[in-house]
């Protein structure tokens, strides 16, 4: 997701880069495009308006830093504003209370609440070593309780039984007691989906909240939501004084403007992204990273973090160090990545996070699918280590040997080489600027250490 928005903005901003100065004219042209892109991305109209106004005011009003060219200055402003709208940093869950710490879920029908409960249970159990209990106060939707029961068993959370003929408030009361006797650290309370205009149902969840006194009340919102995200988020926040937001189904191709809207309208932090149907598909939300991603700079930081957690730590660190030092990304690195890919949610997820990937021609992106990992890795395995480190030596006869060795055809070998080249180019683009971190920092605050040429393409 966000791909199209970042493509659009990248394009627009590229247009302004290199212009002599920011004028009313070229800024408003770029702003018109930004407005279009944000609306296409389903960002709520009032939020779009605010955003455009602020960027415009700052772009025209401020003295442009002499060390930046106008395009860079504009990028910087847009980036800073995006970060500002989405919130400054990831807010972790606040579980600092006498156990059990209670987390209450709220949201529209089908948003992803029950699934998110399972994901959070797993997250708290695995990463924070918490003992987690879950309970469903959804007495309306058929099989809602069974759904949570199944998921609880899957993630190893303690399931507190409830049934459709009970009152949600009674369920809640008994659950708190049971969680206490079980010495649970955290109690996650799932609720039925409800419309913000359903007064009875909103009153019900308000009562639940008053009874439970949760440390966190999380609003789960579907990443595909349109303009309604603003109304709904406001209504839920008014009724429940939310503590945070989970953006579910962010793994699709929705441009996800809802993230911006909900954050801007409620002022409450987006704490997690739902990135799939499985219970491990929960990612912390980093607004600064997402803003960078929107601007086409990739999400290298979270990629590295994820790699550290899920795959061979040493290799990941080696790669991170190499990238930071601006060393070449060779075929060995590429092979390591292919091997690790399966653990990391597949190629799509990786591609999405690498800087500049959204600028690849769509064809090039589509060529790379999960099914090809093994084949590609086998091809690289059939090379000598010299070839892997210096791919340029691979000539026609070497290609034939590699193809034979891997049971493939020469065009397959060529494709691997080409894909590696593309990856390498992306990596270079980043490292040329003196390391990803510097670049990110440079964009967020100070000037790019690599000088004004740093940002221009």
């Amino acid at each position, binding site marked *: 997701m966000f791909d199209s928005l970042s493509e659009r903005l990248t394009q627009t901003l590229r247009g302004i880069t290199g212009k002599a100065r920011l004028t009313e004219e070229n800024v408003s042209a770029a702003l018109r495009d930004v407005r279009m892109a944000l609306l296409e991305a389903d960002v709520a109209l009032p939020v779009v308006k605010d955003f455009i106004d602020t960027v415009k005011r700052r772009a025209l009003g401020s003295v442009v830093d002499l060390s930046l060219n106008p395009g860079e200055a504009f990028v910087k402003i847009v980036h800073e504003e995006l970060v500002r709208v989405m919130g400054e940093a990831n807010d972790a869950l606040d579980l600092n209370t006498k156990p059990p710490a209670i987390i209450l879920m709220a949201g529209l029908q089908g948003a992803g609440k029950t699934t998110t409960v399972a994901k959070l249970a797993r997250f708290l159990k695995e990463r924070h070593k918490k003992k987690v209990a879950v309970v469903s106060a959804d*007495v309306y939707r058929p099989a809602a309780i069974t759904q949570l029961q199944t998921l609880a068993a*899957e993630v190893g959370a303690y399931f507190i039984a409830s049934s459709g003929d009970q009152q949600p408030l009674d369920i809640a009361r008994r659950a708190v007691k049971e969680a206490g006797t079980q010495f649970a650290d955290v109690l996650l309370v799932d609720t039925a989906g409800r419309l913000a205009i359903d007064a009875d149902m909103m009153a019900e969840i308000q009562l639940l909240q008053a009874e439970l006194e949760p440390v966190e009340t999380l609003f789960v919102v579907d990443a595909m939501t349109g303009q309604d995200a603003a109304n709904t988020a406001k209504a839920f926040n008014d009724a429940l004084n939310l503590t945070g937001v989970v953006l579910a189904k962010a793994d699709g191709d929705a441009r996800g403007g809802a993230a911006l809207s909900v954050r801007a309208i409620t002022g409450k932090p987006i704490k997690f992204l739902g990135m799939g149907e499985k219970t491990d598909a929960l990612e912390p939300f980093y607004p600064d990273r997402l803003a960078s991603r929107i601007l086409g700079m990739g999400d290298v930081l979270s990629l590295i973090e994820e790699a550290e957690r899920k795959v061979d730590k040493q290799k990941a660190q080696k790669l991170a160090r190499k990238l930071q030092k601006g060393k070449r990304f060779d075929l060995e690195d590429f092979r390591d990545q292919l091997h690790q890919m399966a653990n990391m949610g597949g190629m799509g997820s990786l591609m999405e996070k690498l800087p500049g990937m959204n600028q690849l021609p769509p064809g090039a992106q589509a060529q790379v699918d999960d099914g090809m990992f093994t084949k590609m890795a086998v091809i690289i395995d059939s090379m000598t280590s010299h070839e892997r480190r210096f791919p340029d030596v691979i000539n026609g006869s070497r290609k034939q040997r590699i193809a034979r060795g891997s049971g493939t055809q020469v065009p397959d070998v060529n494709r691997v080489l080409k894909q590696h080249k593309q990856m390498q180019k992306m990596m270079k683009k980043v490292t040329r600027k003196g390391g990803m971190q510097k670049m990110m920092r440079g964009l967020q605050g100070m000037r790019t250490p690599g000088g004004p040429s740093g940002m221009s393409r």
Partner: protein
Amino acid sequence: MSDTKENGGKGGFWKRLSASLGKTRSQLAAGVGNLLLGEKEIDQEVLDDLETALLLTDVGIDTTQEIMADLSRRVRRKELNDTVALHGALGLLLKELVDPLVKPFEVPAADRPFVIFMVGVNGAGKTTSIGKLARYLKQQGLSVMLAAGDTFRAAAVEQLQAWGERNDVAVVAQGQGADSASVVYDAVQAAESRGIDVLIADTAGRLQAKTNLMEELAKIKRVVQRLNARAPHEVLLVLDAGVGQNALSQVREFDAATGVTGLILTKLDGTAKAGVVFAIARQVRKPIYFIGIGEGIDDLKPFAAESFVDALLANE
């Protein structure tokens, strides 16, 4: 489900439709407030307000600009001279846009069993719509059977079985983790041998960008076609009224994978505005058979363009 939720309470359908669309309407009305005050000259502010109102209902930037361009042209040519005329022209334009999407849902006697696939993204309302559709078809005197083709999501089978019980219709299921295509295949066979009129197959929710999951849908279709080349007779894509511009990609991708024959628009009882329907009408024309206006078994109604647009534009 409680009784009040089940029946949705208060009033007949039309009242409920306008009550439920009331939010859309007041949203639009707020935007076109100037228009509704009576005859007034059309200036840029009026046009801007109208554009805002359309955007706020998820009509989308492209379609909004097209509508605005059309109206502005007529304003310049002095075909529309005041806000009342502008209001009328907008209503007509919107009706013309969605009119081609109206199509009654029919089950021809020649096709037995008549096979319906219910597809869509996660949480759109597929399973619930199956429950409602089963009721609707039974009321027309048709016998119905359900296939628990969502073998992925936790308790999806139990959820469909609950709807089967409510409707007193059989549910063919194999349980979580089974092969979806084989469940649906078995169900079509069972429906054939038992002389059932309509078989409705549930499928797991999937995001349209996931090519492997879309391929799985195509496979279910291929497998069923081994039994009956004309099946599925309808592939219904369920769209959440709250969805924004992503709806267009949903229609396109599900259509490419399975050949969507019609849409069901759910959750129109909320504040969601479903203006994306107009973009769908312009770009990826598919009939809208039904709208969902609640979680109860009777909360499924045929889509009616006139009342949809009227409710959207009506005076308070």
